[in-house]
């Protein structure tokens, strides 16, 4: 029997589903045993990976954000897979979403296998939107496209007097705000990093001012925590909520238990600033590299087997809101009928991944800079123009 040490950062609905997958794998594979550890998402997870690999106590397999590869690969923290290794496990490039696969490939070496594509969506409260006259007959919101329309809609919602906030955003944290900021940036067709320039032009300021306006106008709460941002929505105190697809299970579960008190839906983030675009990232599987204690071939074989199996069974992962990276699954009928995924699945076509840079990625410098400059600016603690300037300067210095 091969024991596999598995680390992930998945909790909430993700965690439940991943645990179920692991259990199923363990049950169906008596020769392999996955011992899973869940660590805290973000900085703590990637710090642990770092230190454990340094002392040769790294896991055999771990989940890894695609956006971090440019940061991770040069530091040698990831172990590349050879073509033979992949082939022997039956992992084929063509079965995976192309954009995602590419992200994990450097110098023709594959450093990780994508598992999903996930993005942010707009959750909405049908009851309230209807009252504000913003709900179409198809049950989808209407009149949200374009910033002016959107803001007018927020006003209308506010005018109903039914909610505290028309739009709940997780305004106190860099990660969440990066996703919104990057989405708004991309909708202007702008890039975060262009060559060695960071945030060229005014797009950054515009995106940030848009967000700051929501907060200062009282549409969105100031500096609230992740949980509170969701709770505002689920408790009916906010009409709309921008968050990752991973919160879909939260809504589904509450609705199922009848605790939600309203009908909900989720759509792609509306086109506010010119072009349809949404931030996206991928979860992937990777193997940490360790000089002191490299992974043994048997374990590697088992690990690849696990990865292949996980992808093949990723339909249940889709129920966590994600879009699987394994094409045979997304092509399946089952997936195509899954709600609300089907409603927003088209966002995959316009998804924008994080910039390919060692500044990018979860728990990377950009996240930190967003925390330090974007968050205060959108909460009115810093002038948006200054914030963008300082962010630019800070990141430039780290480039």
């Amino acid at each position, binding site marked *: 029997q091969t024991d596999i040490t598995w680390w992930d950062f998945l*909790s909430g609905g993700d965690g439940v589903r991943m645990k179920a997958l692991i259990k199923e794998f363990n049950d169906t594979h008596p020769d392999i045993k996955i011992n899973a550890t869940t660590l805290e998402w973000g900085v703590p997870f990637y710090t642990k990976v770092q230190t454990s690999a340094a002392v040769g106590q790294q896991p055999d397999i771990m989940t890894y954000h695609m956006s971090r590869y440019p940061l991770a690969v040069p530091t040698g923290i990831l172990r590349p897979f050879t073509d033979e290794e992949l082939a022997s496990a039956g992992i084929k490039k063509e079965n995976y979403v192309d954009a995602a696969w590419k992200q994990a490939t450097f110098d023709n070496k594959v450093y990780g296998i994508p598992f999903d594509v996930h993005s942010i969506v707009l959750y909405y409260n049908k009851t309230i939107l209807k009252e504000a006259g913003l709900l179409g007959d198809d049950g989808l919101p209407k009149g949200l496209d374009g910033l002016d329309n959107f803001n007018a809609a927020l006003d209308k919602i506010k005018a109903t007097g039914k909610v505290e906030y028309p739009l709940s955003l997780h305004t106190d944290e860099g990660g969440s705000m990066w996703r919104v900021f990057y989405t708004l940036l991309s909708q202007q067709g702008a890039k975060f990093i262009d060559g060695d320039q960071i945030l060229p032009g005014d797009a950054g300021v515009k995106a940030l001012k848009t967000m700051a306006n929501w907060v200062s106008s009282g549409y969105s709460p100031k500096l609230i925590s992740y949980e509170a941002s969701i709770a505002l929505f689920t408790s009916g105190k906010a009409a709309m909520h921008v968050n990752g697809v991973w919160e879909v*299970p939260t809504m589904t579960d509450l609705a199922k238990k009848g605790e939600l008190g309203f009908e909900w839906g989720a759509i792609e983030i509306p086109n506010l600033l010119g072009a349809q675009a949404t931030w996206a990232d991928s979860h992937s599987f990777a193997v940490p590299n360790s000089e002191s204690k490299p992974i043994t071939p048997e374990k590697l074989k088992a690990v690849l087997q696990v990865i292949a199996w996980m992808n093949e069974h990723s339909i249940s992962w889709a129920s966590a809101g994600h879009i699987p990276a394994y094409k045979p699954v997304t092509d399946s009928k089952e997936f195509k009928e899954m709600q609300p995924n089907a409603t927003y699945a088209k966002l995959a076509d316009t998804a924008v991944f994080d910039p390919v840079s060692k500044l990018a990625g979860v728990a990377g410098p950009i996240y930190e800079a967003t925390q330090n400059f974007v968050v205060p600016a959108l909460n009115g603690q810093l002038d948006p123009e200054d914030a963008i300037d300082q962010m630019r300067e800070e990141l430039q210095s780290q480039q």
Partner: protein
Amino acid sequence: MPGKTIGNALLLILTLVIACTWAFPIYWAIVTSIKPEQDVVNKTTLFPDVFNFSAYYYALFETKLSTWYLNSIVTSVTVTVVVILISVMCAYALSQIVFPGRKLLYGIILASFMVPSQALVISQFVLMHKLNLINTWGGIILPQLIVPVVVIVYKQFFDSVPKELREAAKLDGCGEFQILFKLYLPLNWGITTALAIITYIMAWNAFLWPFLVTNSDDMMTITVGITQTRDAFGVKYARDMAVAILAAMPVAVAYLLFQKRVTQALMLSSGIKG
């Protein structure tokens, strides 16, 4: 003198109000933990409408709380016992036996009192790596074994034991170890309890070091472990509170049971000269 009585009653009420305010966050955490998650955010009531223990069910059966309990207990108890044992012997020798270098040694220990062990995390981490103790109980325990204050406090208390007692024991035929374990230790049982409690609380509550030295959630102590259940998803204030309360429970219950003795023991340490 009725004025005095009214003054005292007012003072009592004031004290009571402050004390209740002081403890309110704990009450609030408990109340939150037994409310249904939706009630938590929907209604701010000081008392739950319905009792709902699903958060506890979750904390107990869907996290590794019991593993973390075990890790915490094993490491904290070991740390406490070993710290007390090695410190008491060292302090006794320093206090009662004349041997060359004793002043120097005591000086070093006194100086170590000021050394922030937290500043040593890097080199201790390196050391644990060399000893191959990362992510093990031993790794958690070892660096917590040196608590110079314990030696210093013991020495002060031993210094103040009347020397006649020691002489009487000597005449009664005791050797040094017997004097220590049959006389000095039981005589200073109060301060031993205090030091053990303090050491235990320190070990149980230690965060930074166990956080650094453990990797897998099977090795984490409870203090570190519960920061790992901070789901990044959904609304689960009640769960967070339930987990927190369960984490605090063993020590809290022990404290409440032995409240008088703990208080008395800890008060002894006020006699320590800094």
